[in-house]
């Protein structure tokens, strides 16, 4: 049974955050000695190293050249973008448990757990859940729970495992910790060093009044924390609806196969973050930073050398009719999009942002006809679009115009069906004669007698008009750049030299602007 906490707070701390942020984007780096460098060469120094590099003998502060002498070591430059993404992912893991989260620092979050007992049960279960959520997002974290927010924060930084500080035991947990764990200012740290105070226990034993006179209010605050007090309200962070991830590449990638491997990795991370928040992805904005073209790279003109050419950007937006969390589906759609419209140059950085939406809720019914699965349908449409072209697949929508054949193509979405009872209300009309259109219309020659077509010739076929209905005059948009004006005729034609199908019904049109006859279609 876990100890009871009166008002529970949790602190989540990511040890070696800079390194974990890089390793999250490139998980294979976890298995090899790694050092993160900061600064411009040749003055760059290692600011973070992993355990394997530490075993080789590398220490933080070494130059790249010095660290490289210890053995095969992977070097990466510090990546603020990756750190931002890691911090956002950490927030998402925290929001999967509670909406009351304070972002204390990039590597530390403080959570208010009050009222969550009924939902998650015991506190150790909750801590395990938090650690699992963070691990899913690619980070290993240290967690501490306490009735006091500051105690939880300090214990999380000091102790590795999930630690639960029982009520009233805060002071005992803190007393062995060095006073530096309380993050005093440099000036105060110097004062404590001069006084010979090295642990929290020693700080807690000082009289508060004298401490206040000696070092001011900061000293009093740190004293309260060292005594296991220092309760304060959290500065809550608003949950974000946009999820961003980026990946900077050491070497630019041109091949679509290699690129899709990287895209899949980013999409996996985005999908995991969105899932942690019980949301789905509605839109994915991808921006590829392209390598500058070679002619610019070798241009030695002084003005060009002075100003490095800005990398070209290639945007690619994927809008989904139905929100999804399926990273594989998103990757397939993105691949199809890139196959149709490739970036055109090697990619050196990928930035991806996902707009979230509430997850789709579906409820099947016995009385509603089955329709295509939206995820599968989107993929099918994307594949067909790759064959026939983007604008040639979808649902037609008629335009508000009398212009012949005025329509536009819209995205097809399996429309929610009505129940059987409602659907029967739809009036099915009597079978109607359909028009088989010719796009573009076929040019024709028409002979008139008393303003009425009597014989026609088109596509090498000649025929006599048996019946004619028309002219049906229509015109419009004369106030715009593309006016139209036509007289339409329905003709029944008897073709010469075609014994198999001598008669046919056609729609002819005389274009008044072009002064030309056309065959618009055939009644079939």
């Amino acid at each position, binding site marked *: 049974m876990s100890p009871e906490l009166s008002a529970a707070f949790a602190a989540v701390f990511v040890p070696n955050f800079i390194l974990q942020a890089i390793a999250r984007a490139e998980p294979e780096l976890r298995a090899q000695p790694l050092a993160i460098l900061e600064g411009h060469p040749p003055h760059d120094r290692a600011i973070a190293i992993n355990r394997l590099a530490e075993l080789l003998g590398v220490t933080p502060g070494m130059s790249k050249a010095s660290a490289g002498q210890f053995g095969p070591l992977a070097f990466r430059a510090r990546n603020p973008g990756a750190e931002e993404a890691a911090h956002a992912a950490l927030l998402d893991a925290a929001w999967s448990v509670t909406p009351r989260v304070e972002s204390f620092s990039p590597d530390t979050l403080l959570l208010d757990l009050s009222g969550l007992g009924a939902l998650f049960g015991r506190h150790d279960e909750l801590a395990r859940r938090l650690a699992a959520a963070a691990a899913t997002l690619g980070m290993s974290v240290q967690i501490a729970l306490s009735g006091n927010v500051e105690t939880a924060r300090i214990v999380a930084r000091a102790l590795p495992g999930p630690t639960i500080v029982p009520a009233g035991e805060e002071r005992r947990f803190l007393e062995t910790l060095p006073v530096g764990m309380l993050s005093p200012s440099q000036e105060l740290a110097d004062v404590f060093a001069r006084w010979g105070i090295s642990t929290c226990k020693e700080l807690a034993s000082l009289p508060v009044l004298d401490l206040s006179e000696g070092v001011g209010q900061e000293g009093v605050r740190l004293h309260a924390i060292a005594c296991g007090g220092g309760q304060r309200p959290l500065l809550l962070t608003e949950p974000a609806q946009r999820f961003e991830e980026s990946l900077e590449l050491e070497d630019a990638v041109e091949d679509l196969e290699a690129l899709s491997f990287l895209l899949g990795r980013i999409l996996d991370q985005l999908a995991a973050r969105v899932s942690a928040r019980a949301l789905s992805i509605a839109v994915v904005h991808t921006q590829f930073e392209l390598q500058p073209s070679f002619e610019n790279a070798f241009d030695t003109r002084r003005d060009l050398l002075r100003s490095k050419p800005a990398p070209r950007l290639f945007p690619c937006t994927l809008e989904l009719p139905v929100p999804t969390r399926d990273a594989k589906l998103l990757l397939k759609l993105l691949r199809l999009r890139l196959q149709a419209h490739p970036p055109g140059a090697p990619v050196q950085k990928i930035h991806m942002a996902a707009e979230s939406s509430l997850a789709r809720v579906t409820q099947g019914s016995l009385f509603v006809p089955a329709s295509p699965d939206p995820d599968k349908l989107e993929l099918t449409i994307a594949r067909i679009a790759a064959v026939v072209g983007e604008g040639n697949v979808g649902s037609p929508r008629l335009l508000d115009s009398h212009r012949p054949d005025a329509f536009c193509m819209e995205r097809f979405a399996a429309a929610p069906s009505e129940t059987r009872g409602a659907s029967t209300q739809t009036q099915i009309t009597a079978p109607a004669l359909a028009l088989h259109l010719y796009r573009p219309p076929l040019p024709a020659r028409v002979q008139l007698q008393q303003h009425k077509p009597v014989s026609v010739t088109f596509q090498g076929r000649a025929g006599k008009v048996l019946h004619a209905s028309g002219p*049906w005059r229509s015109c419009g948009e004369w106030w715009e750049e593309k006016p139209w004006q036509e007289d339409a005729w329905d003709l*029944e034609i008897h073709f010469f030299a075609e014994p198999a199908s001598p008669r046919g019904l056609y729609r002819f049109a005389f274009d008044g602007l072009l002064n030309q006859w056309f065959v618009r279609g055939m009644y079939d």
Partner: protein
Amino acid sequence: MLSRSSALRLHVESALAGRVLSPFRFQQPQPITASCGIPELDQLSGGLPRGALTEIYGAACSGITSLLQSALAARTASGECCALVDAQDAFAPAHAQSAGVALRRLLWVRCRNLEQALRSVDLLLHGGGFSLVAVNLTAAPSRLVRHVPLNFWFRLRRTVENTSTILLLLTRESHAKTCASLVLHMERAAASWSWQEAAYPSRAFHTPAALLHSCASTAEIVRSPSQRKNIAFIDQASRHSDRTRFALSAQDFFPAASAGGPHLPPSHQERTENRG
């Protein structure tokens, strides 16, 4: 002496006597069908079979596109999603909407050639979920359609088997052969014109007020899942039972749905002299 299995069989048959005619005879399940929107044709063929390939062929102006339009109208009206693979981009959405097709439930694939059409239908069928997938190859060159291998149609048939999808193939000549469960041959019968000369006595109208009223077509069953192969050459009487004639009414000249503006019936449309 009867063997044990024979005794059991006899026992079951006697127990079910009067209720089940022949309990040990395998009975081919009746195909589930759906209306094609033309009552005469539904009565003749029993409807379009689901989970099977239906081929409809006929010459130009024989009513194939009208049959497709009716089938789309019937399926979309009952809330089902349909797909049309149009090999030569010949579908008229305005006319289809006037005929009752719910365009928002129709996925229209506008192809430029036969290869695009065949690849698209393959992808659509593998995606699944559509109630009706129609492939209109009537405008595609016949010499190219003839070269589509038979195993392609067979593969399509196998793909839709055990699904509720109606696969409709529209061609000028029969190509799917035995792969199609239902084969219909369409022929044009006659067009009907209404003469309303008396209603327009003015000399301003240079033509008699002829209106295309309707067009009749004939459909003949060549192959059907519920009937044996047509044996018309043996029994002339059976030939007539495999044919039906139906009328397709001509629509108003300006389809009502094509515009948001006022729509007038054809008799009130502007009729003026042709300047051509």
